[in-house]
Every structure is written in C-alpha cells, then in structure tokens.
C-alpha cells in the first residue's frame, strides 16, 4: 500500500500533491477555511495525524494546535519540519528565511528616505530573539522549490521503491515553479516602485522575491493592536511615499486600514489572501494562490 502523507496547510499540501503524483495522495489537515492558528482539532484530523507515515508542517508558530499534538503524542510518523525557532533543521536545500520586521519596514537601498533609516538598525538588534523567523516561507517560489527538494528527499528515503516517480515529479514541479516565478516577475515588474501598506506582515517573502515596495504593516501580530504613534508614523510614511494601495486580508477586519485610507485621499484598499482560503485544495492550488496574489497586487497598485 502507498505511503500515507499528511500536510498541514493547503499551499504545502499542493506542492506535496505534485511530488506524490501517481504514488500517493497526501491528505490536508487544516481545511482552507480553518485558521491553523486557533482551530481546535477534530477527531478526523487526529486520526489523519496519527495514521500518517509522514507528517509535513511548518512549526508551532503557525500550526499551534498541531504543535501541541506533536509535542504530546508519541507519533509513529516521520515529521518533516524545515525549521524551528532555532533556525534551519538541516533540510535546507537553499531555503531562505526572513526575520520578522518592525511595523515600518526597513527600506531597500535606493528607496530609502533618510529619516527612517534607524529601522534597519532596530531589526538587527532584535535579530536573535526566539520566534523571530517569519514562517510564511512558501510565498517565495524559490523557497517552494527548496521545500519540495527537502520533502522529495524524505520521501525517497522512506519509500525507495518509488524513487523514480519522486524524482520525476520533483523535476517537473521545479520546472513549473520556475515558470510561475518568471511569470510573476513579469507581471509585477511594473509594480516595484509602487509603495503599499499591508495589514499584517504575513507576506514579506513574496515582497522580497519580487522586490515589491511594502513600506509597513499595521500590526505585527494580528492579536496585538498597534500604538497610535505607529499608526501616525505609517500615515506620515504613506503620505511621504504617496502610497496608493493598502492591503487587507480576508480573515481580519480592515478597520485600521480604513483609518489610514481616510487620511490618504487617493489610496485604495485591496485584498490579499495569503492562505488561499477560497481555493480548492489540490495540486493546482499553489499556482492559483501565487497567481491570484500577483493579480490582486497589480489590480490595486496599477
């Protein structure tokens, strides 16, 4: 019988589906409408995890209920986790991780305005605290490739009889991802100088890959409201850079963005969905997700 593979969230599940083509169909633990942060597990999810030979997830910063389960239960499955709070766990294959940023993002060279250059310094100072790596790594297609390589390696180790399938699938997937990457580069090429503000900083991998110009996030942790000075600095910066687009996320109230918008007569509010909550899980989801992201970005920014 085939390998039982369980994947925590839908973008990763989509990638693993590719790898398992013709061999196994991975199961998805958190449905697209379930927040991995706060949802309690259902019995079927428990069953899934317990039955799995391979369990693939990001880490307890993201999938908190799964984290408790993995910590508590002696599971028979091989757990694939690319990094933890201490950094990479040895699967890297070129995985690039970013640190969480302060509310007003440190700016890339050239876009800098003098008065907020201290932000960069701040980011370094806090650079080595716990829990400071941003877990949303899959929004960079190159990271997706690194992830796929790491998973494929595990799969081959566990199920050597299908080595050829896995290698072929990985090869195809890398090709597809590279194409996707190129397409998005093309689509977002004109957006590089256009500044925007996001609700929470869950999206910097995408931003960094395509050299987009996010200037700040309203909140760092969606459970933690911002201070008024932060808000006011964001508004100043937004005015300074003539921000025309503010991105909200479907699972969070856009109220702060409305406040900022009220001070910026020309700004629009766009929606970005980093988790693909409206998409059908499956091999195509990852590609749809990133395409949709770049589409909503260009729609708002253009």
């Amino acid at each position, binding site marked *: 019988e085939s390998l039982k593979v369980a994947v925590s969230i839908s973008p990763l599940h989509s990638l693993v589906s590719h790898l398992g083509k013709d061999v196994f169909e991975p199961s998805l633990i958190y*449905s*697209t*409408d379930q*927040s991995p942060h*706060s949802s*309690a597990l*259902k019995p079927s999810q428990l069953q899934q995890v317990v039955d799995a030979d391979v369990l693939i997830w990001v880490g307890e910063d993201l999938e908190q209920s799964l984290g408790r389960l993995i910590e508590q239960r002696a599971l028979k499955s091989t757990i694939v986790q690319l990094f933890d709070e201490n950094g990479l766990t040895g699967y890297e294959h070129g995985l690039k991780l970013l640190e969480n940023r302060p509310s007003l993002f440190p700016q890339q060279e050239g876009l800098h305005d003098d008065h907020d250059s201290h932000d960069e310094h701040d980011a370094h100072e806090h650079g080595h605290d716990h829990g400071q790596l941003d877990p949303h790594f899959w929004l960079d297609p190159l990271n997706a490739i690194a992830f796929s390589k790491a998973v494929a390696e595990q799969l081959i180790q566990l199920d050597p009889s299908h080595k050829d399938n896995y290698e072929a699938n990985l090869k195809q997937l890398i090709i597809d991802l590279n194409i996707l990457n190129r397409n998005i580069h093309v689509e977002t090429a004109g957006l590089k100088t256009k500044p925007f503000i996001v609700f929470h900083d869950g999206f910097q991998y995408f931003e960094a890959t395509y050299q987009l110009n996010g200037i700040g996030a309203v909140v760092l942790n*969606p*459970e*933690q*409201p*911002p*201070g*008024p*000075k*932060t*808000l*006011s600095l964001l*508004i100043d910066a937004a005015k300074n850079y003539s921000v025309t687009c503010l991105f909200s996320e*479907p*699972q*969070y*109230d856009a*109220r*702060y963005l*409305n*406040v900022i918008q*009220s*001070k910026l007569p020309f700004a629009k509010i766009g929606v970005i969905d980093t988790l693909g*909550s*409206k998409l059908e899980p499956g091999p195509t989801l990852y590609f749809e997700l990133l395409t949709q992201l770049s589409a909503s970005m260009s729609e708002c920014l253009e």
Partner: protein
Amino acid sequence: MIDLLWPALVAGSLISLLAGPLGSFLVWRKMAYFGETMAHSGLLGITLAVLLNWNITVGIALITSMLALLLFALQHQHRIPADTLLGIMSHGSLALGMLVLAFSTQIRTDLTGLLFGDLLSVGSSDLWLVAIIITIGLPLLITIWKPLLAITVNEDLAKAEGINTSLIKVVFLLLVALTIATAMKIVGVLLITALMIIPPAAARFIAKTPEQMGVIATIIAVLSVWLGISGSWQFDAPTGPAIVAMAVVFFVASVAVTNLKQKVN
C-alpha cells in the same frame, strides 16, 4: 496628533457617558461579565448571519438580544446566580458557534477583532453610531433609573410598590445588550466591559448614593479615556489596554486611599 486621536477621544468619552451608569447596574446586579457573554455570543451571531445571509450586525444584535431575554427568563428562578448564568450562556454560545463554524466551510470570523477592536480605528460612521446609541440609551437609562434601582435593592419591595418589574428588567437587559453589541464592534469588548465595571468599582469607595456612584464612575471613565489615550500616544502603546490600565490605576488608588483612611481613624 490630535487629528489622529480626536475620533478616539470623542468616541471614548461618549461611550463613557453610558458606560458609567450602565456599568454601575452591572456591578450591583452581579452581571460584570455581561460584556464577555455578549462577545462570545457574537461569534454565534456572526456565524448564523453568514449562514443565513443576513447582515452581520443584524445577526449579532439578534443573538445578543435573544440571550438577554433568555437571561431574563432564567433569572426568574433564583437558584443559579447571575454570574453562573452568564458563564453558561457565554460558554454555551461560544461552543455552539464553534460547532456551527466547524460544519460550515467558508466562514471566517475575527474573534480577536471583536475582543480587541480598537478605539484608534474609529471612523466617522462609528462616531455617528456611538452618538445614536448615546442619544437613545442615555435618556432611556435615566427613565428607568429609579424603578430599576428599586428592583435592584429588593424586587419584592419594588413589585409591591407598583413597579412593573418585568418590563423594566427586560428594557434594561436589552439596553445593555444592544449597547455592548454596538460598542464592541467599535471599540472591542475588552474596552467596553472594562469601562463598564472598573470605574463603577472605583467609584464605590467614594460614593454615598447610587446616583453619585453613576456620576463618579462616568467621570473616572472619561478621565481614563483621556489619560489612557495621552499615555498611549506618549509611549506608543495600544490604546485600549492603555485606557484599561488607567482605569485600574484609578481603582487601585481608590482602594488604597480608603484603606489608608480606615487605618488613620
């Protein structure tokens, strides 16, 4: 600065006007956790609204009003205290909301948004809403103040002396429910419930009559809002928690001064 903060100041002060006196009744009637219950039931309201394609505000208002009426019905028996009833309704509706949510894909709710909604994000339409609540709620509360107080002292006495206790109690519960349901969308449950119970508790040590307690509570609430917002600007701290912390400071000061006075005597 003021530009960014004045909606917060205005909204906070307006809400304090109602929170002081309404909250005093919540304290007297052992219903300090009414707000929490409303917040938890809000999840159920949102879920139902999305499922049945209603407006979300309508869903929340409907569920909270129904819970208020249920509370009224259950309070008739005296064997379960108010706080336990609130606890049952709060946990029950939260559990129900989560169950419904589990069976209905595609509903996303922002429970933390309801809990921590923030004064800083108050916009002009919110201000209008607050103004409307105040202009309806405050006169209504003043109208039922006296009979409600009599009921709070002793229900039998109030009934014997000609007060329609059921009517007054229902009006009160609906008034609180709707005030909290609206305010929590705007300023978050943490802030509205804190403004409702901490200032009255601080005022209890100073006041000699119920009316004084209502007024002093209002003053403390308004002061907490102003000082809290200034502090939050000063230290770039989240506004809601800063206001709550300020109110707690007033409470602690009030307890400390009272204790000190007793020691001196």
